[in-house]
């Protein structure tokens, strides 16, 4: 029983990290049909700048803030320089964001060096505690709680504020929103920046979780995020949470019980969804 529970915690934590990455991706896609292949680059930049600040200042919470700010700034740059010149052209968008992803990944190696870096959680998040006879690792719980906080914050903004209303309406029909006199491009820029910040946060939280960071992990992790976006339904925020948790849990359990299959399980999940419900589990109605 305690084994199942600890796998559950493990899967939820992984799922939360994927969710933070996928949520930005899915909102950006839903609003402007932009599939941002550079999202993994924002993830590693968040991780590296956060870890750099953390090792300098020894303050984990401040480091999280630094990674979020990096994400916001990089999101702004990506949107202005890379996505904006090719608006409305799918092929160019997809090609150019992938190119930018590579530039971001290689710049990491130039700025921070090509070697892997080891990262440890801060003292107050190290170790574990017992509930009954179940061992709970503190840092994993921290990721899960923080992930849910971010989810509810964004959920609240989407459901209860005017800007959230515009974003939700824009996902359904952006021409209509524009004809109502709303500058959808400005809204999109904000969404892009928030999405980038979430990706950077995900990278920062992932660093002590996996214990090591390296430049290629951005592309590896963003593949999981793509799978989640497909499963959850492109443009669906809640869908991305459920799909991310599903993928995280599937990965955790398969890695323990059938390690040989753990690679393929997510691909199989995605293929199943594509065959039977190609619009994703949670389709945005419009």
């Amino acid at each position: 029983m305690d084994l199942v529970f600890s796998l559950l915690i493990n899967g939820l934590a992984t799922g939360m990290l994927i969710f933070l990455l996928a949520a930005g991706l899915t909102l950006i896609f839903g609003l402007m049909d932009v599939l941002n292949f550079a999202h993994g680059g924002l993830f590693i930049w968040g991780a590296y700048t956060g870890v750099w600040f953390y090792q300098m200042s020894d303050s984990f919470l401040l480091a999280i803030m630094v990674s979020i700010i990096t994400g916001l700034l990089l999101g702004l740059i990506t949107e202005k320089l890379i996505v904006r010149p090719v608006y409305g052209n799918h092929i160019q968008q997809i090609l150019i964001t992938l190119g930018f992803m590579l530039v971001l990944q290689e710049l990491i190696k130039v700025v921070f060096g090509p070697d892997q870096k080891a990262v440890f959680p801060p003292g107050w998040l190290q170790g574990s505690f017992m509930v009954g006879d179940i061992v709970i690792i503190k840092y994993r719980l921290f990721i899960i709680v923080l992930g849910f906080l971010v989810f509810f914050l964004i959920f609240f903004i989407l459901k209860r504020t005017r800007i959230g209303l515009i974003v939700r309406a824009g996902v359904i029909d952006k021409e209509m929103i524009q004809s109502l006199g709303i500058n959808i491009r400005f809204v999109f820029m904000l969404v892009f920046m928030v999405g980038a910040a979430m990706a950077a946060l995900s990278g920062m939280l992932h660093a002590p979780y996996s214990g090591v960071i390296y430049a290629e992990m951005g592309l590896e992790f963003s593949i999981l995020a793509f799978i989640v976006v497909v499963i959850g339904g492109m443009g669906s925020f809640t869908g991305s949470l459920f799909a991310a948790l599903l993928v995280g849990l599937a990965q955790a359990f398969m890695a323990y019980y059938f390690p040989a299959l753990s690679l393929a399980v997510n691909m199989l999940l995605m293929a199943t969804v594509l065959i039977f419900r190609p619009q994703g589990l949670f389709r945005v109605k419009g």
Partner: protein
Amino acid sequence: MNLRSIERSTWIYIAIALLLFIVPFIVTGRSMQFILIQIFIFGIFAMSYDLLLGFTGIISFGHVMFFGIGAYSTAISLDRFDSTIPALLLGVVLALVIAAIVSFIVGILTLRLKSHFYAMLTLALAGLFLVAAEKWRSLSGGNDGFTFRLPELIRDSQSQYFLCLVSLIFIFFGLRRLTKSPFGKVLMSIRENEQRTESLGYTVLHYKVIASVVSGVIASFAGVLYIISLRFVNTSVFATDLTIDVLLMTIIGGVGTLIGPIIGAGLVEFAHHWLSGLSDVHWIFERWIILYGTVYILVVIFFPLGIVGTIQAKLFGRTVTKGLKDNKSKVS
């Protein structure tokens, strides 16, 4: 056959091809011949990509998996059986059949959806193949890879040169014929406007899947040639770098032109050769992907027709190919 019905450009291509047959007798340096062989191989690989990106408007980020499938099937076949021509042929057949099956499954799953799905699924699948090749050590030799012996016939670099050149010529003219056929016209109309093609009564999905399978099979054949030229295989044949290379070759040369990707392959291969030589001069050349990525981004924004596309536009005063500038009507 009426000679006059052959287009003038065909004669030019035939003349260039004949010139290339003489080259190995003039250029005898092994390293130079090796670079030319690599250009032919990547020319084939980039042309297969051009069929997808340039003619049909499909973006694949995992094209390297077909390349890798071809490489590993041939290498494993030559390694397990003796290094004879039948073993090689068995490997080639295996390579082509597996690539056809994989590209068919991927196509049928994702090509009825928006272009994003194909890009994502192929990227994910290529990642899966890379990890599988690293983990399945008993078959693939893992990251270290393995060497193998080639059949006597294609062991020296001159015969490899001719093998690759003949393959390049056949595939080039084959693809040229294909894209100028009614089938090719339908592919191009899908690129220009998918809904309109559908409403004209064409089953768009069939055409896209066929394009995807043809492209996958040719890419797999390029992988076969690649592995013959190296006599060594490791997981680098599944690396994302190769996808980037082939993207760059196709886009710099000019999408939708077929000859463009070959020229692009030449440029990128020579750039590789020179840039790796420059790494002693300045450390930035070791991180050449940055230069590549930057060039790539600039080309996509400012130069979407590529070299050949731009020249054609200048010469004929009209855009023969629309390049990467796809129609706005696809944005829904």
